């Protein structure tokens, strides 16, 4: 069995989300900040008339702030309550990965990214962390 992942970079880690959940991937968009909202919520984006909440993944995963000269990219996810965008550093390719290379996330990884990453794919030259989008969005809503 293989599965397709939409990948992105965040800090020095490499992540992937289930491609089925991704509506589209877009470059940096202007955002309207939402005062009083949790800092994880970076703002609102007008995506062709659709209002999309942008979530700063660096804040969600408690990474440091993004270097000032780098603008985030958007991984727009489809959800029941409309679209949500994950702000990431860099977009990678869509990868088709074999289940054979999958392994449950070791405790040390969980230490860094919490329980949002259930597992890891061992690629040839690096690891790809699978991001559980449902859990991520739930964590944001609970924030």
């Amino acid at each position, binding site marked *: 069995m293989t599965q397709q992942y939409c990948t992105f970079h965040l800090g020095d880690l490499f992540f992937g989300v289930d491609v089925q959940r991704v509506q589209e991937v877009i470059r940096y968009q*202007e*955002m*309207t*900040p*939402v*005062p*009083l*909202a*949790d800092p994880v*919520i970076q*703002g*609102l*984006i*007008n995506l*062709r*008339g659709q*209002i999309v*909440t942008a*979530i700063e993944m660096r804040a969600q995963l408690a990474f440091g702030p993004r270097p000032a000269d780098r603008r985030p990219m958007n991984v727009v996810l489809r959800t029941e*309550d*409309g679209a*949500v965008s994950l702000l990431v550093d860099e977009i990678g390719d869509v990868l088709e990965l074999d289940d054979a290379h999958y392994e449950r996330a070791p405790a040390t990884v969980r230490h860094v990214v919490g329980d949002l990453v259930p597992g890891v794919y061992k690629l040839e030259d690096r690891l790809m962390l699978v991001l559980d989008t449902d859990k991520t*969005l739930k964590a*944001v*809503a609970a*924030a």
Partner: protein
Amino acid sequence: MEEPDEITTEFLVESYENLDQLDQELVALETTPGDTERIASIFRTIHTIKGTSGFLGFAELERVAHVGENLLSRLRDGVLALDEARTTVLLRMVDAVRTILGEIERNGSEGDARYDDLVADLERLQDPDATDAPAAPPPPKPKSNAAAAASPGGGAGPPNVSDSSIRVDVGLLDELMNLVGELVLARNQILQHAAGTDDTTFVSTTQRLSLITTELQEGLMKTRMQPIGHVWNKFPRVVRDLALTCDKQVHIKMEGNETELDRTILEAIKDPLTHVVRNAIDHGIETPAARVAAGKDATGSLSMRAYHEGGQVNIEISDDGAGVDLARVKAKAIGQGLISEERAQRMSDRELAMCIFMPGFSTAAQVTSVSGRGVGMDVVRTNIEKIGGVVDIVNRPGRGMTLKIKIPLTLAIIPALVVGSGGERFAIPQVNLLELVRLEGTAAASAVETIHGIPVYRLRGHLLPLAYLGEQLGMSPTARADGDHRPALNIVVLQADDRSFGLVVDEVFDTEEIVVKPLGPEIKKLSTYAGTTIMGDGRVALILDVLGIAKRARIVAEGHARGGDDPPAALPEDKRAPTRTMLLFRAGLEGRLAVPLDLVSRLEEVSEDRIERAGGHHVVQYRGGIMPLIDVRASLGLPAPADPEPLRQVIVHARGDRAMGLVVDTIVDIVEDHVDIERIGGAPGRVGSAVIQGHVTDLVDVRGLIERVDPTFFREDAA
């Protein structure tokens, strides 16, 4: 030739649709005679036609449908088997029904045709043995078929009503509405772009696009409109039943049934209207005996009227009953602790009448099945306000009352004021907007006063509490300060609940038609926003929830029951006293004192040497007149502090052009708390004591103190 009325038209449309299906079903049934579900479905259709035609007074149609229904019921129950003869006769019945419907559509009546043969056949075939049709029935069959076939296909007559209207899925309409919303936004963007170019072709095309978009928006809005009659039609029955329960005689009159409203709004006003009607009958209209005694007709009248006015819909519900008994309302409201005695004295008749909308208010002596649980009218108002409507009362004591409801036509696109703060733009729904105040230069610097940290502005002599938008949203905490170098002060005066307050913003832009979009779940929990919208430049802007902002700024009490979220039934159980805003101060050495803030017109500082004596009282020259002063310390018999401050604080209570000043030592704070007044000991000059913010605080009897100095101060003629 008589035009069929609306109900009949609707009946025709529905029946035609069902008949088309019947033809197919009957034919299909012939091949699968055992399909009881299908027979049941046919039965229901004919049953509906029978019921409605009887109701509308189409006797022949009812007769045909009735015997057809009988036959079908026996088929459904398995007493009879469907064979060719029965199918034929049922199809003949369908044709007959169609012919009669056509006649009704053209002439408004059934015409003179009688279907005795058909009825006889239908009856005869109910007998299980009469399977073989006699020679008589077949001949009429082709005849009636031919007649029926001629009308739809021939094109000779006018088209059926069902040809000129279709049923559309509401979901599809909602989706189209969304798309038009997008189009409006795109149009706004293009308009903005066109304003900056010289390309005349582009500009004129843009104008055309703009016009078409507006027309499309209006047209689509119309498709979502339904006449208010959809909701009203059930009221005659409600009124009749209720009148019987209450032993009253009520005649209902309705006007403007055809007034159209967006279906979401129609849905939202259904329950409030029902409640108002129930209330009018239970509380408003008197018993026949009482009415006759009052010189009125024994039968009360309830009239409902709906009409369009200025892009809004007005609904008026009037009765000719007793009206609102203001004295009783006053007594009840005070008794239930909803308002204070002092406040009640100062309320106008209209304000008193509006008390019936307070949460927990009920004048019914007894809780009946109809009303009296005190959860009604406030929910009515809450629900109406939730959709951007307003409620008002015209009270005619002894002669009845009118409830006026003003509601917008639609919720999807609303007018809003766009303001700026902290570099961001926000939209404020126009329904909350009272007025705009702009102060420039030195006026801006000195306009804002603070009462112990709470900024206020004197708007035509009244203290208007202020909230700084930037500060409330945590954007620019340093922006506040009365004397900072801001060039102008923009105050947006808003209505939240019953209170008005000023929202200070950096900039005021324009009013705009905005398309309301819902908030995502991540943001919905913030009570300060009601939704989002997209501005002309494509950026997203947040729509402010005015009540949420007011609560955040503590202008409106947080716990204030606002229907909707709280189950209404919980209200009467809430034994907590209502929250009130109190001014806390000290006089002399003794403990804390308080007066309700609504009795405070202004706060002043007076130096000891400006206090003069006149007519046996201390007075001070104030605003070109003489204001008598009451020393609270002396009046309450409190010991003086060892070294009195040279500057005295004066709480001014103004009434008309007269004013009284209460002299106190220090102003402590303004707080909002549940105030439950207890009378202890009856010390002079005090209303009682209450626990405010965990401290026992004496409430000063402002009225009593003032009357000691000037007994005429509160008389109506003296004011």
